[in-house]
């Protein structure tokens, strides 16, 4: 796995919700951030990095990510 955990810096009154770039799941407090080939992706877990490289890329190609 190439990624690492990155916590969000958010206050309790920030109501934004972040979703996993791979599976769509809610990410409550910290993201597994990895390089998806076309930018950084925020995932919910290392398992989603594995899913990305083993299934998503061969099936759909690389997901454009943000430079976070």
């Amino acid at each position: 796995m190439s990624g690492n955990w990155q916590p969000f810096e958010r206050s309790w009154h920030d109501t934004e919700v972040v979703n996993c770039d791979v599976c769509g799941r809610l990410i409550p407090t910290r993201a597994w951030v990895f390089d998806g080939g076309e930018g950084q992706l925020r995932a919910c877990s290392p398992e989603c990095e594995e899913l990305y490289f083993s299934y998503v890329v061969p099936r759909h190609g690389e997901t454009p990510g943000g430079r976070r």
Partner: protein
Amino acid sequence: MSERLELDTVGLHVLHNALANIAAEMALVMMKTSYSTIFNEGLDFSTVLLDARGNLIAEKNFTPSMMGAIPNTVAWTLEEFGEEFFGPGDVVVHNDPYRGQCHLPEHMMMKPIFRDGELIAFSGAIGHVAEVGGKAPGSFAADATDVYQEGLRLPPVKLLEGGEHVEQVWRIVLANHRTPTNTWGDFHAMIGALNVGERRLLELVGRYGTATVTEGASRLIDYSEKRLRAEIADLPDGAYAAEMSVEDDGVSAAPFTVRAEVVVRGDEVIADFTGSSPQVRGPMNCTFVVALSAIYNAVFCVTDPDALIPRNSGCYRPVRIIAPAGSVVNVVHPGPSVGGNTDLQPKLIDLLLAALSQAVPERVAASSGGSSSNLLFGGTHPETGRYYSNYHFDGMGAGGTALKDGNDAEVTRHSNCRNTPVEVFEHRYPLLTLDYGMVTDSGGAGRHRGGLATTRTLRVLAPEITFSALFDRSRIAPTGLFDGLPGKGSELLVRRAGEAEFKTFQEAFGVASPTKFTNVVLHRGDEVRYRTPGGGGFGDPRERDPEALRADLEDAYISAAAAEHDYRGVDPEAGTR
């Protein structure tokens, strides 16, 4: 001094039954003490036990649509707030669709269970609360364009702290629900269930010891995972795709698309919804956990239909999902989602089963009616002078399978709910049921035909009632499978007092969708007549057993004309002459 329980096969079986019985007793508490018919008659709730990390360890799962939400709401609340958020005697409520809930009416309540100061488990109750505010009585606004029109949204907040009511939170909730007395009663039924779950679990750990029970629960989860992985490994590897159109979202008349690819990869399944429509403006969007429940449901149908594997978080581990955020299968703020749970989810299950029919044709069903056929109404009761509101659903036809005809008049398989008896309905609400029955020719023809739809006619007995509805599959009929024919679509009609003919709600009130509308005001003597969708047929109708056809004709399940037209070549008298 606790009793010794060996965690061998027999001991684990004993423990599983003990935990499952606790969840079942919790469910009885809700049935016996709740105020609303949706709980005590409809059984639109589930009761569960979870471990200290939010993994499901036992359930009384009346409602499979809640499978995705139950472990996720607790685990996400734990991650967001931390274990220190929970103290003895606390009860946390959560209905936020963007944080793991099915839709706004679904409320998950969780109670941490402590022993000797250590958090050892949670008891949980999740249920569809009948009235949670928003623009329409019954909180089912079929034309809502954002979550704020759907009702009061509660991120995880405490209803009880240290066993005491958190009065400020209750005041907000009760001021925003139209029928606060019902909310008070139903919330306390849920809290009562949590208390019973806590008490019984503490008795169990008192008997066998905390370490034995928690270690045993963890082994049961591993056991279920292993068993389900073995079942999945028996499915042929491959990628199985299917696509469907859904007729409208309640706001625009345009159809939208859901695309699913079910990938069987060794001992795991991936449900990939990439390519589905972006989230729609109306409330037909699913939340993430609803899409998750749909794939769990489809996988359990084809791998373990008799539920022989203990249902716990282990069953969820081999199933993965790709539900792009902002699509119709994973709504993001502020998109509405009330109908995604009730009326997109059953069709998602049908879609996933249609995909899996390419792998295991003998284990799937044709499309069900695919609509919960939601009817909502409220107003001031003329006899009591009190405000009432109700959420009602009716049975539809299930799809035919390789083994048998689809069930008739069955509430959707994702909800598994019961209908409300006419007597209870009429006792509580100012509506007279003029007729209620199954619809001839509504099940799609097939070697095994689709189940029959239901119809009901209601007459308004009050000076005024506000009606809303969210039905589906009126224009895109439930599909058959392997040359089975489609089931009959749904229909909603109204006849104003003094008028001769029934009309559609579009004709009578100019609403955007014939099956999805909000806040239509009806008056004394007006009548509503509706038909739910029938199930799709399975297999070529010409292969139908003549005896089954004869029985259908005798029971008026099908007409002579339909027998002649749809079952050409099958002689219902064969073998009787």
